[in-house]
């Protein structure tokens, strides 16, 4: 597996928003990942089913998406801090405002509950 890591697409310090900032206050990291087809395993950022290999950061918003045929119940989980689930697409946030947070580092993972499917994770931090 070849991983390519790009620089964050927004400037650090986007505390007041602006045209170069990601949506919401403070986000500087916008990334997606998947582990290929997974069954009951969690797929952690970035692209591992092994928690000890996962990368934690101060995630503020996450999403889980399945875009293949049929309906798959998917969840995105931000450590012990937040979880969101839905059919094919679910999004959830650390804060109710969905703005960035810098107080807690946590793992972000996606899961599916029906069969074996590729679920795309998407996180903002």
């Amino acid at each position, binding site marked *: *597996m070849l*991983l*390519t890591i*790009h620089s*964050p697409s927004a400037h650090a310090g986007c505390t007041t928003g602006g045209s170069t900032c*990601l*949506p*919401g206050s403070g*986000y500087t990291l*916008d*990334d*997606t*990942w*998947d*582990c*290929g087809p997974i069954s009951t395993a969690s797929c952690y*950022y*970035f*692209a591992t089913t092994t928690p000890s290999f996962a990368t934690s950061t101060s995630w503020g*918003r996450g999403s889980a*998406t*399945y*875009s*293949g*045929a*049929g*309906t*798959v*119940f998917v*969840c995105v*989980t931000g*450590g*012990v*801090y*937040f*979880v*969101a*689930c*839905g*059919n*094919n*697409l*679910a*999004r*959830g*946030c*650390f*804060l*109710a*405002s*969905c*703005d960035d947070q810098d107080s807690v580092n946590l793992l972000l993972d996606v*899961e599916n*509950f*029906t069969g074996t499917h*590729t*679920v*795309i994770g*998407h996180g*903002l931090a």
Partner: protein
Amino acid sequence: MSLNVRRLATLAGVAVLGGAVSLANGAEPGGSHHAASSPGPAAAAAAPAPAVIAAARTIARAHVGALRHARRPGHDAIAASVASGPLLSGGLIDPATSREVVGGRSAAWVVSSSDGQSVCAVLRQGAAACSSVAALVDDGLSPGVMGRMGEPFHVFGVTADDVSEVVLVQTGGSRTSVSVTDNFFDVSADDWPASL
């Protein structure tokens, strides 16, 4: 309440809510993509033609009364901070189709996805869940769960017009009947939901 991701496995019962059509435009616009495989189907998803979008929205309106109500722009519009915020970023929903609904625990918005193929529930508390129109029509239900540390779970969803009540079964076996209002419900759960 503290979240325990291992308990998520018990939710498999909810997954019996199947459907026939996927979220056609579920691609997630991330800054970069890390993959253990070739890019998933989301990467290849293309926006459907306007006629396809319109047809799907017609079906959604036919089965979800909340989407048929005359729209009150000052009342039904998604709050600007939410509409332009990270929860709905990437053009997930069509804000012109939103309707505010109140069901049990909270107010929320029911709205069509930007590609018309899905119906989404957007909670003010910072969560969104979508189902394809076909799944919603077939199952009568688009389920969602949201949890945040220190708070009860939100078990919520959008229902088809012919569903007036939903029964929540929690992992401890307790059963709770939940009334549906405006095709929407949102009920508190101290335990992880086992099925709806």
